[in-house]
């Protein structure tokens, strides 16, 4: 039972990550591989505030969100100036730099030693030690993020994002301040990823930089590309595919030592096959032209 709860909590966390990356995929063929960096900044900020200053989880979370959103400017600005491949390289650079900081600034982050003993948050006086209550808590947060995504998607802001994704020039000719909107998209995307980071930190109660590597960014990107982007169903089906599928492998008696590699091979193949036959992913709206 706990095992199933664990799977669903991971679906919630990655669901939030996928919904947040969904905001960024597509503008001018933008591909970003730095989402794990936002995930990590959120996780570390929340954790450090809670552990070093005894801050309440929710307050630390808000600071984490604001800090991550602010740091997204470092990659949002290049997105205005760089096209396609060059932006991809910039996002690669941003990911590596953030990881290097998390890994090497040992005085601040404890580097590779990690930070153990992260406490569960207190909600209405209850510490969410039990797996079941924490699962409910995650569910609530996920649902809230889903609602926020839905509101954004159907709002004038969402509409402008869809327009810019399709035809920046036409959007500009209609008076839309495209650079400002892109910067907002990055800020919101990073902020939501930070929430996932905070949830992850209090869930596993130990974080170290190895959870926030380039490979992790590629994993999150694959979720959104395989499931599809541009609407809300795509990222979510992508999460189910990427999280549930490996669990099915267990039932096929694939040994645990080998399972991670097999899982990655499957999603690597999924990427290649989808790009060949179904560019919009399983349920996505947006396809690269």
């Amino acid at each position, binding site marked *: 039972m706990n095992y199933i709860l664990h799977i669903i909590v991971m679906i919630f966390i990655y669901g939030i990550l996928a919904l947040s990356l969904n905001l960024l995929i597509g503008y001018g063929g933008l*591909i970003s591989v730095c989402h794990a960096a936002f995930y990590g900044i959120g996780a570390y900020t929340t954790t450090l505030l809670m552990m070093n200053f005894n801050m309440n989880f929710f307050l630390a979370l808000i600071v984490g969100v604001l800090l991550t959103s602010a740091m997204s400017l470092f990659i949002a600005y290049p997105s205005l*100036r760089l096209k396609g491949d060059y932006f991809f390289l910039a996002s*690669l650079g*941003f990911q590596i730099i953030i990881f290097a900081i998390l890994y090497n600034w040992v005085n601040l982050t404890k580097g590779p030693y990690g930070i153990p003993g992260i406490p569960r948050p207190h909600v209405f006086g209850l510490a969410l030690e039990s797996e079941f209550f924490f699962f409910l808590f995650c569910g609530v947060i996920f649902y809230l993020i889903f609602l926020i995504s839905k509101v954004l998607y159907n709002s004038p802001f969402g509409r402008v994002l869809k327009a810019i994704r399709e035809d920046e020039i036409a959007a500009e000719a209609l008076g839309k301040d495209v650079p400002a909107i892109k910067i907002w998209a990055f800020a919101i995307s990073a902020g939501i990823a930070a929430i996932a980071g905070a949830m992850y930190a209090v869930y596993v109660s130990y974080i170290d930089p190895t959870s926030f590597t*380039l490979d992790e960014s590629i994993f999150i990107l694959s979720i959104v*590309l395989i499931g599809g982007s541009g609407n809300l169903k795509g990222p979510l089906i992508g999460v189910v595919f990427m999280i549930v599928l490996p669990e099915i492998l267990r039932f096929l008696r694939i040994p645990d030592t080998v399972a991670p590699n097999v899982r990655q091979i499957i999603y690597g193949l999924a990427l290649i096959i989808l790009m060949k036959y179904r560019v919009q992913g399983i349920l996505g709206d947006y396809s*690269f032209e």
Partner: protein
Amino acid sequence: MILQFLANGLIAGAIFSLMGLGIGLVYNTTKVLHIAYASIFVSGAYALYFFLKVLHFSLFFSIVLAILIAMILNILIEVFVYKPCYLKKTSSAIPLISSIGTYVVLTNLIALIFGNETKIVTSGIEKSFQFGSVILTRIQIIQFAAFLLLFTLYLILLKRTKFGKLIRAFANNPELLSMCGVEVLNLRILIFGLSGIFAGVASCLVALDIGIDPYAGMSILLVALVSLIVGGVGIFESAVFGGFLIGIIQNLVVWKISARWQDCITFLILIFFLLFRPQGILGIKKRMEEL
């Protein structure tokens, strides 16, 4: 002291340059960001390991086979992954994503077959030589020599042969080439084959020095990409300039700051160039026409 770090920088730079030339050759001509090149590197190294350590072939034979494997694998990726995109005239995002997928598949296949730990290819301590205040191991000298040889051959190929002319024409004006009836698809295969050779040689050199693990390919590819951008996209030899510059800077960072911050500094340099000098040191600024 500084001379030792400079020497180390040059040796590292030699490897970065080889990989930079390989990825640059592909990018300048086909405009594909060949991320899967990282797994080509790893394939070459593991092929060497397999032939040398498992099948116990001779060193020479193992190296030749390893380079051959890297070359063939690179060509296969072009044929099955990139060629369809080229024929369908897709945007550059699609081959890039497919390349990432290919990297994930190949890297994990290798990890599946050989395991995740580092494999050592040579046994025993390397012989070292002293040149003044600088100490170099035998393999390091071989790395630099191999680079010089390969780079010289490459320059001759580029400047003096018909193939070289075709490559340069492809980089400058691909449509013209296909209109002149040049078999672009075959040219692409030759390009990927040559690029595979660079990766094969680099991977053997590195494997014989420090061994190999499945994830080393991405680390070295990343630096190769930085070398390409810093040197300048569009000019085939510029990755060498970038490679040596980054190699030296990395070792200066080790000397003056700490080995830990090499990556960070390297990629800060990348971002700086992307934003403020995207044409690299040797490149020419291209005008961007709107609409």
